């Protein structure tokens, strides 16, 4: 019996609770609500610190417009690149057993557990090595726009890999085997059977990679710098505006990022891709 059928036969909590269970549920709800209240309080505090006028003024600023454009461009490119790389890695990790798989698994998780500043520093050092310098003679990376994309990619791709691995693990490998007996090559079986079924996971991985990239700051600060109208993305704007004491502008940009986050969450829910993300861990 496959996973989905097994889950569908599990008893579901219909919301009906006996009176004796109430204290248990209320206790849990009270502990959980502390966190929910904290999130909402932060958002309300942000919103109350600024006004539509401030937001409008921020949006008209040339620097912030540049940061919005660069953020949208770099996040979109990063998301596409991340999924492009995560599909083969996720598939191989879910389907094949090989020597060193556990080590590779740990390596793939390094960007998730490493402090963001360390990733930025590591990238900076990498591009100061002889091969890195040789590359930069023809294709400048450090403190240029490609560094922003590379910094975002270094972190976001790890999340895309995890999402897609769990997606492929949940697809019945028998389907591929059947496709092989029906005349498909391994690659046809992947394109015609596995990929269509993984579409929700792919949407989840793309949106997650996009959202992670949007919030990335540490590696960009170290590897790309915080140069206005050059490598400035939205988190950099928040940092720069705060550093000059322009808190209203910083909060306005923060609210823009909150809106983007809400948009991503809506996309994930509408696409039905939540399951892939939930099963990521």
């Amino acid at each position: 019996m496959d996973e989905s059928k097994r889950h569908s036969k599990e008893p579901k909590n219909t919301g009906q609770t006996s009176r004796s269970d109430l204290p248990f549920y209320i206790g849990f709800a009270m502990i959980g609500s502390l966190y929910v209240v904290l999130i909402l309080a932060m958002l309300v505090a942000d919103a109350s610190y600024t006004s539509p006028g401030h937001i409008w003024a921020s949006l008209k600023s040339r620097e912030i417009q540049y940061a919005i454009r660069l953020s949208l461009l770099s996040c979109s490119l990063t998301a596409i690149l991340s999924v492009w790389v995560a599909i083969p890695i996720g598939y191989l990790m879910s389907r094949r057993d090989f020597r060193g798989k556990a080590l590779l698994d740990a390596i793939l998780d390094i960007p998730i557990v490493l402090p963001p500043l360390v990733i930025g520093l590591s990238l900076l050092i990498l591009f100061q090595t002889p091969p890195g310098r040789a590359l930069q003679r023809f294709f400048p990376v450090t403190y240029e726009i490609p560094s922003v994309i590379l910094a975002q990619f270094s972190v976001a791709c790890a999340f895309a890999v995890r999402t897609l691995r769990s997606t492929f693990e949940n697809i019945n490998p028998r389907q591929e085997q059947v496709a092989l007996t029906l005349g498909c090559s391994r690659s046809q079986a992947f394109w015609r059977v596995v990929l269509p079924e993984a579409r929700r996971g792919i949407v989840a991985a793309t949106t997650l990679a996009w959202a992670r990239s949007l919030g990335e700051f540490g590696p960009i600060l170290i590897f790309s710098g915080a140069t206005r109208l050059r490598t400035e993305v939205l988190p950099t704007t928040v940092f720069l505006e705060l550093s000059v004491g322009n808190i209203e502008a910083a909060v306005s940009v923060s609210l823009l990022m909150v809106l983007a986050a809400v948009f991503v969450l809506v996309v994930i829910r509408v696409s039905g891709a939540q399951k892939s993300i939930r099963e990521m861990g």
Partner: protein
Amino acid sequence: MISLENVTVRVGKFLLENISFSIEQGRHAVLMGKTGTGKTTLLEAVCGLQPILAGRIVLQSRDVTALKPAGRGIGYVPQDGALFPFLSVREHLEFALQIRRWNRSDIEARVSELAALLRLEKLLHRSVRGLSGGESQRVALGRALANHPDTLCLDEPLSALDDETRAEMCEVLGAVRDRTGVTVLHVTHSLSEARTLADKIFVLRDGVINEQAPVG
């Protein structure tokens, strides 16, 4: 015709050695044995889904040992059907034919033929997501039969069905064999399935395969 000659196959630490048996053209052979004895492994070896370490597999007088699953002329129905959830019933029946680049009119004709054989006419437009167990297995069977395979490999295709649907499916399988002349290798541990369908019964026990007289 299916013939295995001294086949050795290993999956992890599990090893089946020197397995030999043969099934004549158009016969329905049932392979029985307790869980974990290697029935599915053997079936997968016939399908080309499990590499063999030694021996020879001959299907229709053709040595297919080195061939990929696509080149063996087999149809395969796994236990859970393994339908493609994003396709309709019609698309399942068309799948193998599209891969093998049949022309449109031939595909239409073959789909109608299969739908009639398997009583799927009214379900053709349906997504496979909402089908009952019996309907799903008929679709899986139709998908496997679409390209006129000489050999049909069934891996406990009826084990998840209720008694009534199982009896109905046994009838369908009998009709399929009679009308297509396909040679069937059918893995099961149900004695009633063996009694209803088998011309030949093989029992796999402790790595040794023995032929038994058909029961009933």
